[in-house]
C-alpha cells in the first residue's frame, strides 16, 4: 500500500474551495472517486499540476509557456468535484478547460471527453484565440497539458534518443559508437541532445552561445564537459571517436562562426543537425541570436526573448 498524502486532494483537509495549491496526485490505493477510471483522471489532472512536473502550477500552466490543465481555478475545482461525483456509466465533457456537462453514457464509454483550443478555420489564429481567451471562453491546452498526460521532460530525452537511434540505424549500422555528432542549441528542447547522443554511443559536440545553458546540462549529468575553444573540443572528441567512447562536449560559441569553421578545417561530422531556437524569428521574437555575446544587442535579445512561447513549446 502506498503512502496517501493528506491535504493534496482539493476538497480535503486544509484545502479551501478556491485553493491554488500546490497540488500533487494522491498516492496509494485509497481513492476519493467512485472508481479507478475516474480516480485515474483526477490523479493525472493533479499530477500535471505537481510543482515537480508543471512549469507554473500557480497559473495552471503545465508546459510550453501557456499550456494549461484547466481554464481557471474555478473550473479546476469544478472538474475535481465532477470527477469525484462521476458514476461509472457517466461521461464528463470538458470544453477548453471548463467542465460543461455530465451525461449518462455506458460503462465502456470514456469517462471524460475533452476539446481544447479548437476554432473554426477562418478564425483559427492567435489573435482571435487571445481575444476569446481574455474573455474567459477558451484555454490553450498544448498537447498533453489540457489532456492530463504530461509526465515531465522524459519525453524530450526519449524523442531525441529515438531520432538519433533511427539515424544510426539508417546510416551507421545501428550504433553511433566511433561517430561524431555535431549540433547547436543546448537549451530547452536542445538540452536533451548530449545525453541522447551518448546513450547511442556517440562522440558529441553541442555548440551554444550561452554558457549557462551548458552548465545546466553539466549539473544534471546530461553533458560531460564544457569547453570554450574549438581546438580543445576537437582534441577531446577526436580521441573519443578513435576509441569509440561515448562522450559529450558543450562548446561555448556561435554556430554561425563555428559550423563554417569546421567545414574550413575539413572536420566533417558523421551526423549534423541543429536545435538553436531559430523558430523565434518566424513566430514572435523576430530576431536571430546576435553573433557576439558581449554586445548590447545580445543582452537586449536575452531580456526580451524569455517569454517566447515557441522556444518552450517543444516539451510534452
Amino acid at each position, binding site marked *: 500500500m502506498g503512502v496517501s498524502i493528506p491535504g493534496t486532494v482539493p476538497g480535503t483537509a486544509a484545502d479551501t474551495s478556491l485553493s491554488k495549491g500546490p497540488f500533487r496526485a494522491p498516492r496509494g490505493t485509497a481513492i476519493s472517486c467512485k472508481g479507478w477510471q475516474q480516480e485515474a483522471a483526477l490523479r493525472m489532472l493533479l499530477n500535471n499540476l505537481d510543482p515537480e512536473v508543471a512549469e507554473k502550477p500557480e497559473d495552471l500552466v503545465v508546459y510550453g509557456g501557456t499550456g494549461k490543465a484547466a481554464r481557471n481555478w474555478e473550473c479546476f475545482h469544478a472538474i475535481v468535484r465532477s470527477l469525484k461525483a462521476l458514476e461509472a456509466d457517466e461521461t464528463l465533457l470538458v470544453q477548453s478547460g471548463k467542465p460543461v456537462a455530465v451525461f449518462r453514457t455506458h460503462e465502456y464509454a470514456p*469517462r471524460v471527453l475533452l476539446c*481544447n483550443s479548437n*476554432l473554426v478555420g477562418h478564425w483559427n489564429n492567435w489573435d482571435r484565440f487571445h481575444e476569446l481567451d481574455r474573455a474567459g471562453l477558451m484555454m490553450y491546452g498544448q498537447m498533453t497539458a489540457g489532456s492530463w498526460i504530461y509526465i515531465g521532460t522524459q519525453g524530450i530525452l526519449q524523442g531525441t534518443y529515438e531520432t538519433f537511434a533511427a539515424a544510426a540505424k539508417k546510416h551507421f549500422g545501428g550504433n553511433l559508437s566511433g561517430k561524431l555528432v555535431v549540433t547547436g542549441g543546448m537549451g530547452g528542447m536542445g538540452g536533451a541532445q548530449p545525453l541522447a547522443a551518448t546513450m547511442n554511443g556517440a562522440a558529441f559536440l553541442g555548440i551554444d552561445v550561452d554558457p549557462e545553458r551548458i552548465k545546466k546540462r553539466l549539473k544534471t549529468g546530461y553533458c560531460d564537459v564544457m569547453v570554450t575553444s574549438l581546438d580543445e573540443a576537437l582534441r577531446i572528441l577526436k580521441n573519443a571517436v578513435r576509441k569509440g567512447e561515448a562522450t559529450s562536449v558543450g562548446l561555448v560559441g556561435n554556430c*554561425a562562426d563555428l559550423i563554417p569553421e569546421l567545414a574550413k578545417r575539413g572536420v566533417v561530422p558523421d551526423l549534423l543537425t541543429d536545435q538553436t531556437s531559430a523558430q523565434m524569428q518566424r513566430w514572435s521574437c523576430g530576431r536571430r541570436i546576435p553573433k557576439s555575446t558581449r554586445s548590447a544587442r545580445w543582452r537586449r535579445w536575452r531580456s526580451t526573448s524569455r517569454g517566447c512561447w515557441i522556444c518552450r*513549446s517543444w516539451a510534452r
Partner: protein
Amino acid sequence: MAAMAQHVQGMLDLQKLGAVTFDYGNNIRTFAFEQGVKNAYDFPGFVPAYIRPLFCEGKGPFRWAALSGEAADIARTDQLVLELFPQNEQLARWIKLAQKRVKFQGLPSRICWLGYGERDKFGLALNDLVAKGELKAPVVMGRDHLDCGSVASPFRETEAMLDGSDAIADWPLLNALINAASGASWVSIHNGGGVGIGYSQHSGQVTVADGTKEMAKRIERVLTNDPGMGVVRHVDAGYPEAIAFAKKTGVKVPMG
C-alpha cells in the same frame, strides 16, 4: 551574410563533404532560404527522414504512469518491456539507461516508442500484472498527441507528406472518434499544440489498466486501433513501408 544564413551555409558545406545532415524542427532552413541561401532545403527535416518510417509501423511516444506513486511499480513495468520484446536492442538500451539516468517527476512514469502489435501486447500484460497484484495500484497508459496517426501539423509532424496531405485534419479527428468508440478512459481533441494556434490539429487518449477483464477488452481495442490509425494514415498517403506493414499485420484498409 546574416548569422542564420552563414550557419546553414556551413551545414550545407559539411553535407557536401559527407556529413549526414538534417533539420531538427526549428525551421532554420526556411530562415536561411529567406536570407538568400537558395539551396537551404538540400537537407531534410527530421520527421520525413527518421520519424515517419517509425510512424508507418504505428510507432510513437507511448507512455505510462504508476498511480500508486511507487517507483517499484515502474521498475516492474520496465522489466515487462524487456521480457516482452527481448529482440529489440534499441528498446532494451533505452530502458536500461532510462532507469539509471531519468529522474521521475511527479508520479513515476516511463516513455518508450512501441508500435502496432506491441502496444496492445504490452497493455494486456500490464493489466494482468495489476490483476495479479504485482503492481500496487492501476496504471494509466497514454501518449503524446505527437503520434503516428493523431496529428496534422504541416510544419512538423506532417511536413512533406508523399501525397501532399500535410494540412488535412480529418485524421486526428477520426483518431479521436475511434478511440472513444474503442473505450479509452479519456479522449481529447486539441488545436495548436507545439507550433501554435491554427497550425496543428491533434488528439490524445489515455486508458487505465485497472486489472479488470472489462478493461482488458478496452485496452486491446484502443491499443490496437490507436496505433493502427498511424498505419492507415500512411498507407493512404502512399508510403510503401506502411502498405507492406499493413499487409503483413492484417490491418484492414478497404482501398489500400
